[in-house]
């Protein structure tokens, strides 16, 4: 099959940001995640939790709460503003100042008419949700301390607000407080510390559930204002609560990293009088859990350790499958590294800066499995800080290594790189065409002569690059009406003839670059495209989907290839389908036209289209077996999927033009070692 020289790169210090808030939208099955750096991500719950959208954050914008109103997403933060997002274009739509100081919490009512925010100054402010904006309506009675948490009664007539040492119930109609529920402080030394009600949940039967800094989950009656029951869940704080839609299950996230589930079940089998009973404890986090969401079949939790954990509730799952397995999402589902294939450069995208590295060089040859002597170490050529407060949305380096481009929400910058021996200098290209004001996705043509930018408008802009500068050439638009390329995977083939773009509606458009016209559209598949590539010689578009399916589409014949049909007919191997991270890159090896190179977070795979497909009875991970077999027997035992599991926590794999592979790893242990220390817990007798 073949040997590869692999550059194993571990110096990309990517740090995922901690998760601050979650909001689940049951109707569209999306979960929105807000991170500490102000970025907001949207995951598709029924499409293997694929990360559909990423809205990059800004400096100094601490999001504290997220809320869906219908299909609109709002956030509020300590900068005192309420932000609505434009999800199709993946950017901030507008921000409205609430004039109440930092906002600690935001909650929309079920009717979708109002948003309530809890402010530092002790007011609960109601905003009316209009067609295209939100409008301040009024304040509820002002309280003495800040409002930490809010929950609407499902009828929309009452609001429970968690504060310091107490919970207030407001009548929305009058704006007056109906009840005041006093939360007890802890015992002993913590007596003097205030009890913070971190989270409240208002159920339709009038029960209010609160989680506080004393470690209690308390149940209150809103009619009498009395405590019904309290559960001591932890010695530290209960930071987040979430209740299921039918209000029979509640999850609480604690700062110990545990998620505790409560269920509303009858104590005596068959009787009707139900009670909230603590049932299960999940421990999948090392740090504080800042947000939990009980979605129908699983508990989603996120916190300071920056991983999003989807823990399935197996009693709610009807069919056990790969889609219902425990899932930990560590890395974004898109590439943060771009490589200049011809010049051996790598561009690392951090939120606030870019780093350009030159790969090292080796000497001599080595046996498979060995490391080569590194003649020249990798070298950091450039550290490019972003102007302004916005974080980088996308970036790219041209294959020849001469051009660097990046875009934030507000601006796009193009640089030309001059490398003579050890002197590296860049010049910013000024006077960019108007269309290049901002981009969702950026890509250079393989001969580095053109830049393609998926705009926030509806199309792909084509800009030609030359020594003198850049010039707008034209715009590629899909045939059918005004479609937005939201999620862009963008790819150009070798001869520069075709361009394919995928959007968040799962549509893949193919354009002819010579005529600059739309050529055809690939049949829409139910799952999102996670990666694609156009084969340099056969002109076939190879697509990977979030549900781990793969398709090969012949651009010239405008139909799926025979190989693709065979894959669909025979089905993919069980182990392939059970992988839980999406494939992030599709590459082709010019020396072996039948090979397709793929990777996800845990493996690198070469598909040899000339070999038979494995069925469920064949050994899927067969590399070790093949290694032990003599040469002549390997042929009969091998199948199309050649999976290499040597690498893990892979962020990027790229095939360079000298046939070497670049594998950028980010070991999770390294990420964990850079996290702040978790809450100290007593272990045994220490």
């Amino acid at each position, binding site marked *: 099959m073949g040997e*590869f*020289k692999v550059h194993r790169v*571990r110096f990309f210090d990517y740090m995922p940001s901690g998760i601050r808030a979650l909001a689940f939208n049951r109707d569209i099955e999306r979960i929105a995640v807000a991170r500490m750096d102000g970025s907001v991500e949207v995951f598709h719950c029924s499409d293997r939790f694929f990360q559909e959208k990423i809205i990059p954050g800004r400096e100094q914008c601490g999001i504290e709460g997220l809320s869906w109103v219908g299909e609109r997403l709002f956030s509020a933060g300590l900068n005192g503003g309420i932000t609505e997002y434009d999800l199709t274009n993946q950017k901030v739509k507008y921000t409205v100042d609430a004039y109440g100081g930092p906002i600690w919490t935001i909650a929309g009512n079920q009717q979708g008419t109002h948003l309530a925010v809890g402010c530092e100054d002790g007011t609960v402010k109601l905003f009316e949700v209009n067609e295209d904006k939100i409008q301040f309506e009024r304040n509820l009675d002002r309280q003495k301390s800040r409002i930490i948490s809010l929950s609407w009664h499902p009828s929309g007539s009452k609001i429970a607000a968690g504060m310091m040492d107490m919970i207030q119930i407001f009548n929305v109609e009058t704006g007056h407080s109906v009840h005041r529920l006093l939360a007890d402080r802890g015992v002993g030394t913590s007596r003097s510390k205030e009890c913070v009600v971190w989270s409240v949940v208002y159920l339709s039967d009038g029960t209010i559930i609160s989680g506080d800094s004393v470690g209690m989950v308390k149940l209150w009656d809103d009619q009498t204002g009395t405590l019904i029951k309290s559960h001591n869940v932890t010695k530290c704080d209960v930071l987040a609560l979430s209740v299921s839609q039918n209000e029979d299950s509640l999850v609480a996230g604690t700062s110990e990293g545990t998620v505790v589930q409560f269920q509303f079940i009858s104590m005596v089998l068959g009787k009707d009088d139900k009670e909230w009973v603590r049932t299960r404890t999940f421990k999948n986090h090392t740090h504080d859990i800042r947000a939990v969401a009980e979605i129908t079949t699983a508990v989603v939790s996120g916190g300071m350790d920056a991983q999003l954990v989807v823990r399935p509730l197996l009693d709610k799952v009807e069919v056990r499958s790969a889609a219902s397995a425990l899932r930990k999402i560590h890395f974004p589902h898109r590439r943060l590294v771009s490589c200049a294939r011809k010049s051996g450069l790598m561009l690392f995208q951090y939120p606030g800066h870019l780093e350009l590295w030159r790969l090292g060089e080796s000497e001599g040859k080595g046996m498979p499995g060995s490391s080569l002597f590194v003649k020249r170490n990798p070298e950091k050529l450039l550290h490019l800080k972003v102007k302004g407060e916005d974080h980088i949305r996308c970036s790219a380096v041209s294959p020849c290594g001469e051009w660097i481009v990046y875009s934030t929400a507000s601006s796009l910058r193009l640089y030309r790189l001059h490398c003579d021996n050890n002197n590296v200098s860049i010049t910013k290209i000024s006077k960019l065409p108007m269309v290049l004001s901002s981009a969702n996705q950026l890509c250079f043509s393989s001969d580095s002569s053109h830049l393609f930018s998926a705009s926030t408008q509806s199309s792909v802009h084509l800009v030609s690059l030359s020594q003198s500068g850049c010039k707008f050439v034209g715009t590629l638009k899909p045939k059918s009406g005004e479609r937005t390329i939201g999620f862009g995977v963008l790819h150009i083939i070798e001869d520069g003839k075709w361009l394919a773009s995928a959007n968040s509606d799962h549509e893949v458009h193919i354009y002819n670059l010579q005529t600059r016209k739309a050529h055809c559209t690939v049949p829409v598949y139910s799952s999102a495209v996670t990666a694609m590539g156009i084969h340099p010689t056969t002109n076939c578009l190879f697509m990977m989907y979030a549900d781990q399916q793969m398709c090969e589409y012949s651009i010239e014949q405008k139909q799926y290839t025979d190989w693709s049909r065979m894959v669909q007919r025979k089905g993919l191997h069980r182990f392939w389908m059970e992988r839980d991270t999406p494939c992030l890159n599709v590459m082709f090896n010019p020396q072996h036209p039948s090979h397709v190179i793929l990777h996800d977070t845990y493996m690198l795979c070469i598909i040899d289209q000339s070999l038979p497909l494995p069925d469920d009875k064949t050994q899927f991970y067969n590399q070790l077996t093949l290694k032990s077999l003599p040469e002549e027997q390997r042929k009969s035992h091998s199948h199309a999927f050649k999976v290499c599991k040597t690498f893990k926590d892979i962020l990027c794999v790229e095939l360079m033009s000298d046939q070497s592979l670049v594998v950028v790893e980010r070991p999770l242990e390294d990420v964990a070692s850079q996290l702040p220390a978790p809450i100290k817990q007593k272990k045994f007798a220490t």
Partner: protein
Amino acid sequence: MATLYEGYTLCGVGPVQNSSNIGILGVEQGRDIDYVLVTDSSRSITVYKVSDQKPTGSWSVKQGQIISCPAVFNTQSQEYVVVTDDRVVRVWKEDDVNLEKAFKATVSADVLRVLSATDSEPVVLFCCGAVRFLDSLLASPQQPIEDVLTEDEIIRWSTIVKAEHQLVVLFSTEQRGEHCLYVQRFNPNTLVKHRIETEPGLSAPISFSATCRGSNIHLLYLYLNGSVYESVLPFRSSSTGAEGVQALSCSLCLSLPLGEEKLMSGAAVVLDEAHVAVIGFPHPSAGACKDYLCIWNTHFQTLQASKEMAGRIYSQLWCYSGKLYVPHGKMLSVIPFDCQKSSLAAAMGKLKQTSRSGKDFSVEIWNICPNVKSALTVDQLVEHIKTSAVEDVQAEVGEFIRRAPQADLQLAAGRVALELVSRSQTDANFYPQCAFLQLLETRYLCYSVCPELLSLAMVKKDFHLCQIAFQIFSDIPEAVTCACLKAILSTPDLEMETVNLDTDSVIFMKELTQAHSRSDEEGGQLNGFCPPALESDVSDTPSNKLQRDPLSLDMSCPVGLHKGALLNEVLQTAYSDRSLLPHLKDLTVPQVIVFLQYLRFLYFKYSHDAHKQIRALRTPSISQIIDWVCLLLDAHFTVLAVAPEAKRLVFDLHKFVRSQVKLYAELGKIEGSLQVLKNSKQSEDFGMYAIQVIELF
């Protein structure tokens, strides 16, 4: 296993006025499962709430009128329907007091029965074989009714079956000794006639019962000679709608034993797919008296439950929602029953039954293929066992085991063993050891089949049989294991040495007692088998090498070879420690000490790896030995702490265990270091950057 529970009387059966021999016209399901509708042959219809045994409503017709069919309840309209004087259909509601004032309609032909199934319109079956829905009939009562049957064809039995919202009316007719079954289906209306074909010489079927299972109707019918046949009819009519008479294929599914008396009547009703209730046939082991209600398993042909019925039997039997309704004597009894899922073990009585009275229980072996020539049948053999001399019995059992086919033997072995044991228990001179051994060797016995066997062997001090039983039985209760252990420990060694035991185990013991000295003497014998003849002289050599052992272990075996071999068998039995522990406490102090000494001996030997050189089929494992030491220490902790004679033993054991613990602690350290070495080999850390070569195949 099916069970008949204690029954109770629902109502009395009125004096028989007419000659029809019938006290009750019918029992039908009422408005829910707790209500039944009893139509007696006089003039009244009564609704009973079964759980309360109370009537909740009663109606009667005027003097001179006759109820001509059982009343039914129409669940759709919540009305009762009855036919009087063959042609007058009466319909009334629960709160109607007087039947005379209720709705009535006179129809143009004689009605045989009104048939009602839950949640569907009742069906009226005319004597001439025609069928009408009740509502369409009442809409125009005087509509002409066609003749379906020929003139001298008489309906003997009829029923209605409902499944998948589809109704099927079945009725059987008789015409000059020929019996036919008609199947009337609705939507589209089809009537199919089947000829009931049975072996020649059979008289008329005396009882029918139909149930619906899956997409088929299972029809069971009983003949006076005790044969129960089953026919399967498809629920949906085949689209051909073939005219003419089709033959009804049937299969014999049960043949009931007959007594000497000639039977006149009987009834059978299907309870579930494997059980059928029969009344009017004699109990196989209760002699001539035929007034029994029996539940038979048709899969295994076994009698599952029976109940004696006092008084005259009317050959009528109904079954509604888990209760049998039996008119007998002057009463109508309700007998609840329960049919558990039948398994072969349950059918053969191998599963423990909590409520099993020996009297009611009998296992009947059905010779399905009687043409197999066997020297003796099981029944004959059992009879012989009851009377013959020991030698004859042993010979006959041996012969039987050789000749009987495997499948039969499996069933028969338990029965023969039971019979042998019960004879041995009553007759002190009767002990066919050979026969027991032969039966054990068939491997068809287990402890539960014949629980008394092991205790009998213990009483007779037949340790050979015990040993074999321990090897073969996998289900010996802990209490019995302990009793055996006690018996073995309390038997003197001298007596034990005379017992003939399994040679393999004895050789193992011999090897074990001598292995230590031999391995010290020379290495040449390490992996060879030694003829037992050579052993006796070596065993007594005082080994001065023992003195060199820093722990100075006492390596002499505390028990004789044979006792050791038996104890080894005990050690290898399956047990659960929680159940064993209380029984283990029954051992006396000397027994405990001897046993512990023996376990210590085994443990020391095993720790010196002596056993590895011995080839034997069954040897106790080191973990079994340790488990028993733990159990024994747990059970007799205080005894061992107090008893002076145990002091030395416990001290030695402790010393050795302590040394072992030290050793294993050191091993643990080594394991830890090796693990670290292994881990460090695995993840060679290359820092931030490396250029490697990988190869894909």
